[in-house]
């Protein structure tokens, strides 16, 4: 097992509000190097807000987000990716009227030029993207756009990959394919923080998980612990008591 020295990323007492409405009410979590950690929760639990707060797209009201030696809350959003954190956002957010190739090259924006080896790796993971590299991203299917969003976030060669609902609105067969590739990505040493509504798929992949309900962490543990918890089974896995 990893020791506490290996903590790559740590959120402490994070609070985030939209105006006067508190979305995140003081959460703490940590991710160790090489882990796949998942944050589960239903719609509106605050999962995406947590991810946006990590990437500084929304500023925390209080609390700290530490990554390696950096306090992220003190940085502007565009500085985050060059530290080694890459965020594949909810809803994919690919640049719809740019080509697949241009989208991928933007993923490597902070690098001097596109690293051919990483591009080849992304194309090996998602061959569909290479076939369609000259197509506009908006013409891809939902699943292909998700592949592009993940591929784009790999282009900066991140140490920590933030994946926000990669299964959202995608055909089940593609969800399976995408999760298989996420596992492969993690196997290369990339640490993954995965936000999901699809608890079953996420827990199959993850080492550990946190359960978020209306802005608070209500449960955390290893994937086995979460899978065997009666409460989790009932609320997120659709099993009756």
């Amino acid at each position, binding site marked *: 097992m990893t020791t506490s020295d290996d903590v790559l990323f740590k959120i402490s007492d994070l609070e985030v509000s939209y105006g006067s409405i508190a979305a995140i009410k003081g959460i703490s979590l940590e991710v160790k190097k090489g882990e796949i950690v998942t944050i589960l929760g239903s719609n509106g639990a605050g999962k995406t807000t947590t991810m946006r707060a990590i990437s500084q797209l929304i500023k925390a009201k209080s609390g700290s987000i530490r990554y390696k030696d950096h306090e992220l809350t003190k940085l502007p959003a565009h*500085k985050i990716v060059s530290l080694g954190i890459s965020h594949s956002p909810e809803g994919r*957010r690919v640049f719809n009227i*740019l080509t697949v190739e241009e989208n991928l090259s*933007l993923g490597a924006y902070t690098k001097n030029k596109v690293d051919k080896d990483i591009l080849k790796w992304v194309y090996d993971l998602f061959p569909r993207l290479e076939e369609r590299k000259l197509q506009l991203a*908006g013409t891809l299917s939902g699943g292909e756009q998700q592949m592009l969003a993940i591929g784009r976030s790999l282009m900066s060669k991140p140490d920590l990959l933030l994946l926000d609902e990669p299964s959202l609105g995608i055909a089940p067969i593609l969800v399976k394919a995408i999760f298989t590739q996420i596992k492969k990505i993690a196997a290369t040493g990339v640490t993954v923080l995965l936000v999901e509504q699809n608890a079953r798929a996420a827990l199959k992949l993850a080492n550990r998980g946190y359960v978020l309900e209306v802005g608070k962490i209500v449960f955390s543990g290893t994937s086995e612990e979460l899978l065997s918890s009666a409460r989790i089974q009932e609320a997120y896995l659709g099993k009756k008591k």
Partner: protein
Amino acid sequence: MDTFLQQLVNGLTIGSMFALIALGYTMVYGVMKLINFAHGDLVAGSAFVGLFVFSQLLGGEVSLPVVIGVFLLTIVAISLLGFTVERLAYRPLRTAPRLSAVVSALGASMVIQNGIMLLWGPQMQIFPELIPSVIWEVGGVVISLMQVLIMALSTLLMVGLYFFVEKTKIGTAIRASAIDQDAARLMGINVNNIIVTIFLIGSSLGAVGGLFIGLYYRGITFNMGWQYGLYAFVAAIIGGIGNIPGAMLGGLLLGLFKAFIAGYVSSTWADAFTFILLIVILIVRPTGILGERVAEKV
């Protein structure tokens, strides 16, 4: 036929100027979804700065180096003014409601317009004749050296801008920021720097447009930015606001339309018809001719 060719030449000339100015509106709108009402006044300011640079700084004698100097110094001055407008009038309102930014844009427009009046007075000034009045007559059509220069330089600038936006890394970042600012930030793009870049480019093109207006029409007034700004704004809407090739196309079409109305109907009616055209286009095709680009699923 002679009238047709003559008005074609005239239309392409004024259309080139409209297109250069329209690019400033459309680029800012593309990324910020804001109409920079101060842009027309930057264009007017450019003509006055050009007059000042020529007569006060560079001695008032026409020669090729002086003309180039007038263009370069004016472009630098106006792009700095554009940068300042962005800093003072728009950046503090980045997260404010859209209406606040629009009001601020109108305010910036008035400040610049009245600034020009304070510095140069309310009366019309005569812009110097920087381009020798060489005129050719080709098959009954009169074309001047100035018209050729205006069309050639505008084309060069627009082709250059097109390649910059389509082919370079910063150009791709500009297009990405216009599509989705948050996603652009996730890529590591400093969107504030992109906004500064488009203000510098838009103001520079507007500065060239302002100098062309001075050269072509000669009489310049402190409040002319409103008029030419409006034409260019209409051109941007005709082409599809936010769309760079659209602004180029819209500018040329508007120039041709105005010239043909002036040639075949009456020049006093040209403005009325221009705005009728705008209304018709807004009814028939509200997103303009090229519209905002949308990726269609195949």
